[in-house]
């Protein structure tokens, strides 16, 4: 029995129709990485994300958007205008063949199309429809205009991310949205969990499903201790530089290295930490007093002073090495430290190469391969998820997909003349 099967074919034979905007695109990518056939309906102008940078070319170009390429890996592109009256018949045919429809965008737009999808579900009761909207399809905030940034603010992520306040407790730097599209990542991850759950549900056997994902709720769910701290103790955590938000100031984690980089060196202030760091200091030939009676006495009489001294000693140690030296030496001794890497530095790291974290895929315009981050897991031997193709060019699969659902060449031409494709 083969128990080593990868999951890159787990959804083989599953057809996903993806419509909408950038809010839901990552869901299609994740499903494609598990083997689903994802057909993107993106209209004649192409998806919004084709107009978002960074671009591979000096000028903005719909085929050169790296944003589009990242968030549409492994999909097929059909240039169908889903809101065009002539598109309805095509959508109905596609829905007959589909297992899942994903639509994302503002609730009003999605709800208008949802009426159509529900009609399609009547014809294909096993169809799963998943909508991804800012606040879900009901509630008082339903129609607020939102972006990734405003979601990270309202969902509570930014309240925990940023910099230490001034000594008087006043924040003179803004809260930080930690990276682009993270609100959409979180929402899409939850959407995919819901969708694959619904695919399992059909096997019970059950019927299709309508899934109403709220980006706001997804972001809110992803804030760790913040809500429980208020719910249980009516206290609000305060953000701090490069470390966890907390109820009081905690010692620093970020430390500067010899090569001008940072490491994340956090401590539990235990005897074990003191022993290990003493060992590293000794091996590095750096004089210190952590093993002295004086330090032990200070630790007993004034723990705060001892911690400050310990922390300063670690600063000295870290400043004597490069970030990578600190990372490997600390890990070799059992400390949970890491260098603060640029994301691209992992592409050439033997660890990630061995695990197949990045997959080279051809870029259609650059005439070269780019390494895309594709996999977070292995089956013990090889990467668990992968892509059969890169991102599509606009309308690249229009003919192929429409032919597959039975449209003749003349019918496809008529759609083009009508402005539906």
């Amino acid at each position: 029995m083969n128990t080593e099967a990868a999951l890159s074919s787990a959804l083989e034979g599953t057809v996903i129709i993806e419509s909408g905007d950038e809010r839901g695109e990552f869901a299609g990518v994740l499903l494609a990485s598990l083997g689903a056939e994802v057909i993107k309906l993106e209209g004649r102008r192409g998806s919004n994300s084709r107009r978002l940078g960074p671009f591979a070319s000096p000028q903005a170009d719909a085929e050169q958007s790296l944003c589009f390429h990242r968030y549409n890996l492994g999909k097929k592109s059909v240039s169908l205008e889903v809101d065009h009256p002539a598109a309805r018949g095509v959508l109905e045919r596609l829905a007959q063949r589909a297992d899942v429809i994903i639509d994302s965008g503002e609730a009003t737009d999605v709800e208008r199309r949802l009426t159509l999808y529900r009609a399609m579900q009547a014809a294909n009761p096993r169809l799963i429809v998943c909508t991804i909207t800012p606040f879900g399809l009901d509630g008082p905030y339903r129609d607020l205009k939102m972006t990734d940034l405003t979601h990270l603010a309202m969902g509570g992520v930014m309240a925990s991310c940023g910099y230490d306040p001034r000594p008087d407790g006043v924040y003179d730097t803004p809260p930080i949205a930690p990276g682009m599209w993270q609100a959409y990542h979180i929402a899409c991850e939850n959407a995919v969990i819901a969708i694959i759950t619904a695919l399992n549900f059909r096997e019970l056997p059950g019927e299709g499903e309508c899934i109403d994902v709220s980006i706001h709720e997804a972001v809110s769910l992803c804030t760790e201790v913040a809500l429980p701290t208020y719910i249980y103790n009516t206290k609000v955590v305060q953000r701090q530089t490069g470390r966890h938000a907390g109820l009081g100031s905690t010692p620093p984690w970020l430390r500067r290295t010899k090569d001008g980089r940072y490491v994340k060196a956090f401590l539990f202030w235990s005897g074990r930490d003191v022993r290990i760091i003493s060992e590293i200091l000794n091996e590095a030939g750096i004089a210190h007093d952590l093993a002295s009676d004086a330090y032990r006495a200070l630790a007993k009489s004034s723990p705060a002073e001892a911690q400050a001294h310990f922390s300063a000693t670690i600063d000295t140690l870290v400043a004597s090495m490069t970030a990578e030296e600190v990372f490997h030496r600390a890990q070799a001794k059992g400390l949970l430290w890491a260098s603060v890497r640029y994301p691209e530095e992992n592409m050439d790291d033997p660890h990630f190469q061995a695990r197949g974290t990045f997959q080279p895929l051809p870029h259609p315009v650059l005439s070269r391969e780019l390494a895309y981050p594709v996999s977070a897991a292995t089956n013990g031997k090889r990467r668990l998820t992968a892509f059969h193709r890169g991102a599509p060019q606009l309308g690249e699969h229009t003919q192929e997909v429409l032919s597959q659902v039975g449209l003749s060449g003349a019918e496809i031409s008529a759609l083009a003349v009508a402005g539906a494709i």
Partner: protein
Amino acid sequence: MTMAKATPARRRPLEGVRVIDLTRIVAGPNATRMLATMGAEVIRVEWHDDRALDLLRGVHPRAPGGAADSLNRSGLFNNINPGKFGITLNMNVPQGRDLFKRLIVQATVLCENYSPGQMERWELGYDTLREINPGLIYLQITGMGKSGTYNNYLSVGPTAQALSGLTHMSGLPDPMPPAGWGYSYLDHSTGYYGAMYVLAALLQRRRTGRGCYIDLSQTEVGVLTSGTATLEAQVTGQPTVRHGNRMQAAAWAPHGAYPCRGTDAWITIAVQTDAQWEALVEEIGAPDWARDARFKNASGRKAHEDDLDRLLTTYTASEDRYELMDRLQKRGIPAGVMQKADDRYTRDPQLQERGYFVPLPQSEIGTWPVEGFPAKFQNMLVDVGGLPGRGAPCMGEDNDSVYRDLLGLTPEEIASLREDWII
């Protein structure tokens, strides 16, 4: 086991799926939380030593009152582990490992996130377990992954965030240091990927009868969610830099967090079009600075973003954050208050109306709200209270029912195991 509550109208999508849960802290338990929410029978297996005791049981916040050393009063633990059953089992002794193997025979899924090598030290690695149960789906979560050159490196959320690039990408530009994430974001995300992959494996198992091994790396989840950075670096040859809250993918400006009246009160505003900018100018009373020709179109605003942000702050600083959000939204401008936990819990009408906070009973601390799944469903029964219909299990709360119903042990045998410090 017959612990499921009767729900005649709607079925739980993962009914019949049994998960043995050897996870701790947040990443692993978050994966099994999702599976429990979807209706799997999740049985947490814990013990009173530092390998198997979930440290989260001891952390703050804690429900008021009760014994100071109680393992059942952590609010965070309750929020991360609702809908699960809980048993104790001493895996350090052969009898305990034998009982564990009997549980594995009955399992569909095993989820585990011990430090690298612990399962092998117990002689309970995947090769052993699949001999016991060939259809087993085994999710193993580690910081770096089970293979590769860092397979023995240790990691928690902040470690993985640093190495993956997420820490570097978050914050104001140099010379400010990275702000990073103010919590273990990758504990959450890794849980989501764990759940996602187990669900895909379940689907595959239904179709093929085969189980599988999933070696999930927390750091790689960070790599996967680092957006377009690695692609851009390959094309430009330039290292990734931080942009604060500004939008680098488009000429959206203003785009940031602006102070409002009050203590640590902020509003985020994201102007995407010239029409939104015109509406913003009108809303703030069209001050002279806002009519500056530099700000007339998107490229001009983007080119002069420092001045734009500084000048906009002169307006927002005296405004009430919620009132300003309301006024901007009425004009179609994306704007959102930076909500802290108290804001979300006490004054966010959306979370309240959608039933986001689910009151669930917990056997020691009573009924407390737990965060629900962020979607509504039409047909499936999906609820965060799961099969037991409650918050997190108390330590060993379900020993009697699980050992009786699942392994067929008699009350006398269970009492004996308890006396011998095996359960």
